[in-house]
C-alpha cells in the first residue's frame, strides 16, 4: 500500500501541476480528473474506501462533468486558447510560481520538522462512516441538505433564461 500511496501522490501532484500549464480548458479538465482519480487511490491506500468511491462518483464524475458541460455550452473550441496562452508567458507566471514554491517549501518544512506522528489505524469502512454521519453528525447532514438547497435555488434563479 505504501508504494501505491507514493505513486498515486506523484501522479496527483504532477497532473495538478499540468492543469496549471494547460491553455485548453478541456485538456486542463482531463488533468484535473486524473488528479482527482489519483487522490481517490490515495484515499483507498489510507484505508478510506467510501470516500475514495465518493471522490470518483461526485467529484470526478459529477462536478467535473459540469465543467465540461459548461465548456460545451459556451462552445469553447480549440480557438479559445489564444487568450490563455498570453497568460502563460514567463513574466506573468514567475511571481506566483516563486510564491508557491516558497509556500510549498515552508509547509513541507513544518510538517517534516516534527517526526513521529502516529501511523494510521485500521481501515474505516462505509459502515463506520455512515454511523458517524447519521449519529453525532445528523445535524450536519441536515445542514448540508440546506446548503445544497441554497445552491439549487440560486443556480436555478441564475441559470434560467430571462424570457420566462
Amino acid at each position: 500500500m505504501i508504494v501505491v500511496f507514493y505513486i498515486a501522490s506523484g501522479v496527483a501532484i504532477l497532473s495538478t501541476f499540468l492543469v496549471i500549464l494547460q491553455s485548453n480548458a478541456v485538456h486542463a479538465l482531463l488533468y484535473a480528473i486524473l488528479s482527482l482519480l489519483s487522490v481517490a487511490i490515495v484515499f483507498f491506500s489510507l484505508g478510506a474506501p467510501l470516500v475514495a468511491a465518493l471522490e470518483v462518483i461526485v467529484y470526478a464524475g459529477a462536478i467535473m462533468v459540469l465543467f465540461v458541460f459548461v465548456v460545451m455550452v459556451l462552445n469553447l473550441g480549440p480557438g479559445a486558447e489564444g487568450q490563455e496562452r498570453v497568460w502563460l508567458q514567463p513574466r506573468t507566471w514567475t511571481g506566483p510560481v516563486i510564491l508557491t514554491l516558497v509556500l510549498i517549501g515552508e509547509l513541507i518544512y513544518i510538517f517534516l520538522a516534527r517526526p513521529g506522528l502516529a501511523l494510521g489505524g485500521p481501515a474505516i469502512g462505509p459502515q463506520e462512516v455512515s454511523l458517524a454521519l447519521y449519529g453525532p453528525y445528523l445535524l450536519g447532514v441536515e445542514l448540508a441538505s440546506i446548503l445544497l438547497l441554497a445552491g439549487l435555488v440560486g443556480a436555478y434563479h441564475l441559470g434560467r433564461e430571462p424570457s420566462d
Partner: protein
Amino acid sequence: MAEVPTQYGIILAAILFSLGVAGILLRRNIFFVLLFVEVMLNAAGLAFVVAGARWGQADGQVMFIFVLATAAAEVAIGLGLLLRLHHQFKTLNVDEASDLRG
C-alpha cells in the same frame, strides 16, 4: 493497512493546495479560477481524510463528505454565474469584466 506516515499525507494535501493557490494567482479566466477553487477544496478534503486516518476516526471522512456537498453547491452557483458573465460581458476574463471601480 495504512502504513503511511501522516505527515506525508498532509504534505501531499499541502502541495495540492498550494498548486491550487498558484493556479488562482496565475489565471485570469474565471473558468480556470473556479477549477482551482475546486482543487483547493479537494486538497482540504484530503487533509481531513488524512487527519481522520491518523486518529482512526470516521470524523475526517464525514468532514470530507461535507466538503463534497460544499463543492457541489459552489460549482452549481459558480458555473451559473459564469454563464451569465459570458452572456453579459462576452468574455471569461476577470480583468476585462470589471465595471466596478471606486
